[in-house]
């Protein structure tokens, strides 16, 4: 009996081995660079119509992010959705705008707005507001379009609505899908209630929405002297609502979602963009996935749905610690506990100049790396310096003029406040640049012309946040695209960002060279670690097909 078992076992092993060898025999090795690299758009090839709504429990997310997530050890893995030149291609998550192309002032001021504004001559309320912390309602305007109306709290009579208007434009320019938002008017005398309008009560039942319910909302919000209310109207997003996206893993019901969200660079970069504009409420509940149809195919579109917790806007006038601490930090708690509160945190002494249009937002003591959202996310914790560099380049691409033009869309009545808000945003932008641009080797935009002259730029030096190194060094390699192997050619140096390639570069189309570019005598240690650029010889030119700032494995 035992012998029979042994025979079966051996036979099975033999069969398995033969199958493995056979299958291995037909496999081939993928090239390092494909002919369409670098891709400009992440394909979404599959029909996602089977994706179904699913939500995240807010309490679960908070508990998880505050108590479990801090123990998370970042993978230190490179973002996975970048193309071969280390850029984020367009996708259902992200569209390259600022920093990738020249945006006009008109474009950034228009932002996500594509349609006409609401007609506030009549509002028909049919539901409560379903997201966001500031009071609001869901209503149809005189044209019958659906809008989410959000009011200003009494203590910030212009700031909350202004924050939504400004933030949607900033985040749109940064590349995120944003809600179309307009500043408009809500006149209680021109309000009707849809006969089917209901409100969820403490009993759990929905009962008709009444005037008293509306009054309960209006009592808590800022009213204009003429009895009307300043509101921001967000247009209903297109498509079927699928619930919030998560900052880790993938949607198991979306075939096109193959990159774990914590490895998406644009989600990691929210740590930098969030710090700049003070997007403290980074939780999943402020995001949204919708199923949209285009050319007869359905795909999931991902939105940063609510970016109103920016520019110092918070749930309560007395929330001083926002942006300085997570809701809970063990180390900070222990320090306060042991010192009876004498171990002061910056938020206890930072100087805010609060105005009706500016919340708790300042630039003097702002430290981009010390900035904290209410709760961390996995993508937030996965940010590497190359992600931070990528994000900082985009922040740096906002000119003073663009920033002030966007701030102006907040339509603040206090011109001085508008100026101060712009000053703070510019000051924080500059701190982002100083923090993240020199933190890695800042070589960008390498080009190799047909005559063999290499040029590149130094983003940190160009942004005036670092001194130019005395010497740049380039190590040249012949690169085998099939095997990934390299053969050293030569090393060249230059005091400028231009240098000649050595003799002996492949001259035939389809040949590849790799160049490692570093600095020899910079005061910035990370600059001595080379970036690598890959060029492919096309018939008449060298084309940049690859760029690695911090590769996973060299």
């Amino acid at each position, binding site marked *: 009996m035992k012998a029979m078992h042994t025979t079966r076992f051996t036979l099975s092993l033999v069969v398995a081995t033969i199958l493995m060898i056979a299958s291995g025999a037909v496999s081939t090795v993928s090239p390092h660079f*494909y002919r*369409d690299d670098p891709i400009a758009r992440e394909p979404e090839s599959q029909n996602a119509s089977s994706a179904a709504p*699913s939500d995240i429990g807010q309490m679960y997310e908070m508990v998880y992010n505050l108590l479990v997530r801090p123990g998370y050890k970042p993978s230190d893995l490179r973002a996975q959705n970048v193309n071969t030149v280390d850029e984020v291609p367009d996708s259902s998550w992200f569209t390259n705008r600022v920093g990738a192309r020249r945006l006009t002032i008109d474009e950034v001021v228009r932002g996500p707005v594509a349609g006409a504004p609401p007609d506030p001559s009549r509002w028909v309320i049919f539901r409560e507001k379903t997201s966001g912390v500031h009071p609001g309602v869901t209503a149809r305007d005189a044209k019958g379009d659906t809008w989410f109306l959000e009011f200003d709290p009494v203590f910030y009579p212009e700031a909350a609505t202004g924050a939504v208007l400004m933030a949607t434009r900033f985040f749109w320019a940064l590349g995120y899908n944003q809600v179309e938002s307009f500043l408009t008017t809500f006149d209680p005398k021109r309000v009707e209630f849809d006969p089917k309008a209901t409100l969820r009560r403490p009993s759990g039942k929905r009962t008709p929405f009444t005037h008293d319910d509306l009054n309960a909302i209006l009592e808590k919000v800022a009213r204009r002297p003429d009895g009307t209310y300043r509101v921001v109207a967000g247009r209903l997003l297109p498509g079927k609502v699928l619930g919030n996206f998560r900052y880790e893993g993938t949607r*198991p019901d979306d075939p096109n979602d193959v990159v774990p969200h914590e490895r998406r660079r644009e989600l990691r970069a929210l740590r930098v963009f969030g710090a700049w504009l003070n997007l403290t409420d980074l939780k999943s509940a402020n995001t949204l996935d919708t199923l949209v149809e285009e050319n007869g195919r359905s795909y999931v579109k991902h939105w940063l749905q609510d970016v109103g917790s920016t520019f110092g806007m918070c749930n*309560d006038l*007395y929330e001083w610690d926002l942006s300085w601490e997570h809701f809970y930090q063990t180390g900070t708690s222990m320090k306060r*506990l042991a010192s009876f509160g004498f171990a002061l945190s910056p938020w206890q002494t930072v100087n805010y100049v609060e105005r009706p249009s500016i919340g708790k937002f300042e630039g003097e003591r702002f430290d981009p790396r010390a900035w904290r959202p209410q709760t961390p996310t996995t993508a937030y914790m996965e940010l590497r310096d190359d992600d931070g560099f990528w994000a900082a380049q985009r922040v740096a691409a906002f000119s003073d003029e663009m920033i002030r033009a966007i701030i102006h869309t907040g339509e603040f009545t206090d011109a001085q406040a508008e100026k101060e808000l712009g000053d703070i945003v510019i000051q924080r932008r500059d701190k982002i640049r100083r923090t993240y641009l020199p933190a890695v080797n800042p070589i960008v935009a390498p080009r190799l012309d047909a005559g063999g002259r290499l040029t590149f730029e130094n983003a940190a030096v160009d942004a005036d946040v670092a001194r130019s190194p005395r010497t740049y060094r380039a190590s040249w390699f012949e690169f085998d695209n099939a095997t990934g192997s390299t053969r050293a050619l030569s090393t060249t140096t230059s005091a400028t960002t231009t240098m000649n390639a050595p003799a002996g570069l492949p001259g035939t189309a389809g040949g590849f060279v790799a160049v490692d570019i570093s600095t020899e005598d910079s005061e910035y240690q990370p600059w001595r670690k080379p970036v690598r650029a890959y060029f492919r010889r096309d018939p008449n030119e060298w084309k940049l097909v690859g760029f690695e700032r911090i590769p996973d494995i060299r």
Partner: protein
Amino acid sequence: MRGIGRLAVITIVTLVAGTATAALAQTPEPDTREAAVEQAQTEKAKSLHPYVASRAERLITEVENALVNQTTRWHPYFENAYSGGGFALGAGYLQHVSPYNVVDLRGSYSASQYKLAEAEFSAPRLFHRRGELSLIGGWRDVTGVGFYGFGSQTSLSNRANFAFEQPYGGGRLTFWPTRRLFMMRGGMDIARWSLTEPTGRAPSVQTVYTPATLPGLGAVTTYRHTEATVGFDSRVSPAYARRGGFYGVTGHDYTDHDSRFGFRQVDYEAIQHIPILRESWVISLRGIASTTWHKDGQVVPLFALPSLGGGSNLRGFSSWRFRDQHSLLLQAEWRIMVNRFFDTALFYDAGKVAARREDLDFNGLRNDYGFGARFHTPFATVFRFDVARSREGTRYVFATSPVF
């Protein structure tokens, strides 16, 4: 059998590996990046499934639904039948009878065998959100309440116990004319006090005192109690506040059905929270004075006398430690924010009881000091633990409400 099992496992592993490899081998090798990504998406499309929440996520979401959406009507209940009963454990059942109005049936049993059963109807949204009504009725059995004699200079060793059973019922209406700051409250209740034989190591008051030396002893008293409060309340919530204050006066009338123990009482209360360093520290102060007037020919019985001692006033002394016709309590806390959910506090309490109103001064105050820890939400204290030290020893307070 084991051999067949092993064979099956190996075969399955081989087939899966073989199938997968074969599938990859049959799929044409992508010649573009786009095709490579599409291949990964095609592979994923073969195994789509809805999101499956982890066990922890399901559990916490159920808790959230129970707390926020009130999908679960059963709730724990930790309130004691009467102060001094020790740790109490109980349960309640909430039933909404309209969109906002709710009936709560609840009961508890304490370490000192105090028993409570009561029902409360709450209407929190009357008069266009200006009024709150609470109707409550119940029964409690309190098995051992300490009595140490009159005044502030009594000795611990003089403790005697009394016990009582009490059915009660009444209502209280709170009205906020401007929906905030200024408040008025009125209420009426009827309660019957039936003194019973106490349990515990201390002797019964009936063996130490006589009805002549301790008014109310041996009596069954039915009170009709009416009260009225006017106050100014700028706190975010009475159950947890880091700023604002409360200033109020409450008048009581206790009418004894048998005209033996009728009296009137006035309570003056002032609370102020003074935030420092953006509310990371709060100096919280409270003063409360109670004075009584007996009605003609009547006296205030032992169980209705103003008193001090216990987890919400003189925390370093046992519950009901000091009793007399009038009382004065002064409390100060230095509250320290550790994080958004947790505070600690250093506190000092002082107070006295007196037979004469003019003796309510700062001489001869009994005092204690201590350290506290409190878990809270923005609007409510979830759990409070205080350690208080007085010359009568160290006492530990566990509570689900703020001290003030």
